[in-house]
């Protein structure tokens, strides 16, 4: 599988990739983006099987990135990995077509719980 990780923090992109491995999801190709606009471009070029995206990013936020994807007819599984986890944001994410929202700080167990339906171990 190819997994696109979008976050404006390099440290967080590395932690997400590491946590995927710790959750038992090893051997997948990771593609990185620094914001929603770059991630949107990379979805077209790389055709990932899963997107893990931060919410608050410069240039384009994660929710605007997801709206743009769905408006273009792209239904790639999409999960937020963000420091904010209010009920309002969870509802907004779900309504926009996200499969889930993982809040930072997170654990490998939480990754496994949310991502198992779409990621091969």
């Amino acid at each position, binding site marked *: 599988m190819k997994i696109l990780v979008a976050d404006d923090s390099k*440290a967080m992109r590395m932690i997400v990739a590491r946590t995927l491995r710790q959750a038992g999801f090893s051997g997948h190709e990771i593609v990185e983006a620094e914001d929603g606009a770059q991630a949107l471009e990379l979805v077209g070029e790389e055709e990932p099987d899963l997107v893990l995206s931060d919410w608050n990013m410069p240039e384009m936020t994660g929710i605007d990135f997801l709206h743009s994807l769905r408006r273009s007819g792209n239904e790639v599984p999409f999960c937020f990995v963000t420091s*904010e986890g209010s009920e309002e944001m969870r509802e907004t994410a779900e309504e926009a077509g996200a499969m889930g929202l993982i809040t930072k700080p997170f654990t490998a167990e939480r990754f496994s719980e949310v991502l198992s339906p779409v990621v091969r171990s």
Partner: protein
Amino acid sequence: MTAIDDLEDARQDLESLLLDVLNSTLGEEAFTTDEPLPPGPIATSRLSIHDEVEDAYLGIEVRVGAVLARLLASKMMAAGDPTPDDLLDAVGELGNIVGGNVKTLLYHTARLSLPMADLNAEIGQESEEDLHGSLRIAASAFGQTAQVTLTPDAPVDGLYWPPSQEDEALEKQL
């Protein structure tokens, strides 16, 4: 929800939040502390929450000493010798995680700015009066102190707010 009394009421939850964040990012058990920051360079991550209902701002500043900044970057990036850019990134992200969790704890409808990190913040001597109207909590991990200061109505100069397509649509109408 930005009055200082409201913040004081939430002090325990905020301390738990800081401990959780440090435990997770450093992989080391953190404890609440009254110890000050170490002497020497201080790294900061500054951001703000905009309460859209009350149109009020809550400033958040996370401070760590040089040793903890280095440990943080090493742990987060699995790097033995993190660069200054790595330190900025790691300290900024620490602020982002703290800020996002504070927002989730205290607000319903609000926006979080992006963090602005600085590795050599000028921190002068602070008196109790300087902290009047702010809430400060602190925790220690690896024997190093991390401070979080929450200040209602703190200046938001220099902070960057994530764009939203709603903003752009509004600008086009104007």
